[in-house]
């Protein structure tokens, strides 16, 4: 029976769809698409074009009668040292967080994918940070990072000086990155676990016969097999690194000395605190372009099958 169904599915889906089309009539597909279409139009497509439009206006004189100034906002951004600070912070975020989030969860997934005691408990505990609200996580870390807090106690134990985790411009961004990594590990581990199931068992058996040990086995079989997943995790974590906001808002508000200001926090500050709508929109367009490049890579290189028409 199942081969019959497969047979029809593979040879004539289009034929089936066309027969259905005759039966349903012309308007049915549009009726089904309409509700989602309205929401996407109002809250995605219109704002998308409006963002681009706003970026050509100057709101600094009047919020009701903006002046059309062409690309002045973009030129201003390029002359603003804060912009470069923000971009450097974003690059630090990508360079530090992405490799760790691509490699460490894979290592954990391999460890947890064995038949040993307590696996479910380990999974629950490691996944817990993913579930908990980022605001609570950020508050918890802010408490760990306090000047006389527990982390500085450990520093003292190791005969190291106390660190201003969130107050020293040298360290603040890394302290925030630690929160992002801590909250992402469980999530990416589960993605790796799912694709580990697709590695053919025979390959491992062949390796064992050849006398490979645990790590050799995984280096020669698992890593090459999971290359597409590693690439996927890298792009997903890059995109989410560029969208970081809550950690910054709760812990540092972009400070000290802009050392933790990210693109999204900068947009938020310009738009909702300085009410410089044009400048904020130009910055948003820059974010759009960067995220689009990563997303296109993701969709057309790594997840092709899922979005095939």
């Amino acid at each position, binding site marked *: 029976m199942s081969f019959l169904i497969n047979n029809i599915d593979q040879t004539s889906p289009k034929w089936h769809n066309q027969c259905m089309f005759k039966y349903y009539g012309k308007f049915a597909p549009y009726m089904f698409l309409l509700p989602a279409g309205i929401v996407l139009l109002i*809250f995605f497509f219109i704002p998308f074009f409006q963002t681009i439009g706003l970026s050509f206006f100057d709101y600094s004189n009047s919020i009701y009668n903006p002046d059309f100034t062409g690309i002045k906002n973009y030129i201003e951004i390029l002359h603003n040292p804060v912009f470069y600070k923000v971009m450097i912070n974003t690059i630090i975020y990508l360079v530090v967080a992405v490799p760790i989030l691509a490699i460490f969860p894979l290592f954990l997934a391999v*460890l947890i994918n064995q038949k040993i005691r307590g696996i479910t408990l380990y999974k629950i505990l490691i996944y817990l940070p993913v579930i908990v609200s980022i605001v609570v996580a950020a508050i918890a870390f802010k408490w760990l990072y306090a000047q006389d807090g527990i982390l500085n106690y450990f520093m003292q134990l190791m005969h190291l000086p106390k660190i201003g985790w969130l107050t020293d411009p040298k360290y603040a961004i890394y302290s925030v990155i630690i929160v992002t990594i801590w909250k992402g590990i469980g999530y990416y581990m589960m993605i790796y676990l799912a694709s580990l199931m697709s590695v053919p068992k025979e390959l491992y058996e062949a390796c064992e016969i050849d006398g490979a040990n645990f790590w050799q086995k995984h280096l020669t079989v698992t890593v090459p097999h999971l290359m597409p997943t590693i690439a996927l995790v890298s792009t997903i974590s890059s995109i989410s690194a560029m969208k970081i906001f809550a950690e910054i808002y709760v812990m540092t508000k972009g400070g000290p000395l802009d050392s933790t200001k990210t693109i999204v926090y900068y947009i938020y500050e310009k738009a909702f605190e300085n009410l410089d709508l044009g400048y904020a929109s130009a910055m948003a367009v820059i974010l759009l372009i960067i995220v689009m490049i990563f997303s296109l890579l993701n969709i057309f290189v790594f997840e092709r099958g899922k979005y095939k028409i």
Partner: protein
Amino acid sequence: MKFNLKNIPTHIVLIAVSLLSIFPFIWLLSTSLKGAGENIFAYPPTIIPQDFTWANYSGVWQRVDLMKYFINSMIVAGATVVLNLILSSLAAYPLARMEFKGKKITFFAILATIMIPFQAIMLPVYLITLKLHLVDSVNDTMGFIGLVMPFAVSAFGIFLMRQAFLAIPREMEEAAIVDGCNVFQVFWKVLLPMVKPSLAVLAIFTFIGSWGEFLWPSIVLTKEAMYTLPVGVNNLQGMFSSNWRFIAAGSIISTIPIIIFFLAMQKYFISGENEGAVKG
């Protein structure tokens, strides 16, 4: 599953990572249970409270309407889930099963929304929400609608449901039509019950996402009575500026509901079979 000496290094690593995962919460919990008689900055720090008390919990509970925040979060997350289930499966059905003019364009338009991060368009979304009077300064209902609508449907949900519809044998539809169903009956009575597992996955992940959402509510909300849990908890920092005992107690209370939800639904998160639920 028998105990094996060979596995000890694995257990040591996994125990260490598990402890690191929960340690920030443990320390927060410990702080929230320490009374005024105990220095919370004491060196060496103590995990087990010496001056154990529930007073911080009752103190926060009396001063802050956490129950109200919880109810607001439930309303927002509940409505977001229901709308996502309905709108995503409605839109997914023709994309999976019908031929119509403009199908390719529709498909790519939805795909394009994956590439548009909300953070980049939030300003116009806010301006539109204001224009449509979907803010809490009009009234509470409008405020809730404004909190929910930008997240009422997602490309992620539409593609997830489309995958589910694609997997249903076409004979099901044909048989239903022979039996005299119209297109909405086919959808509602035959196809929808068959994609329940995907609906469950979509519901759970949408719920978690909506429950933790912080950026949008902190932009649109003006009234404290409308605060959702993340906004309310962040606000604790301002209210009790240096009273870490209260901030800790409030944070712990706000986390209990989602942990219960997680433990009840854990198989959806950690079974490793929800590959389709990877949210970009």
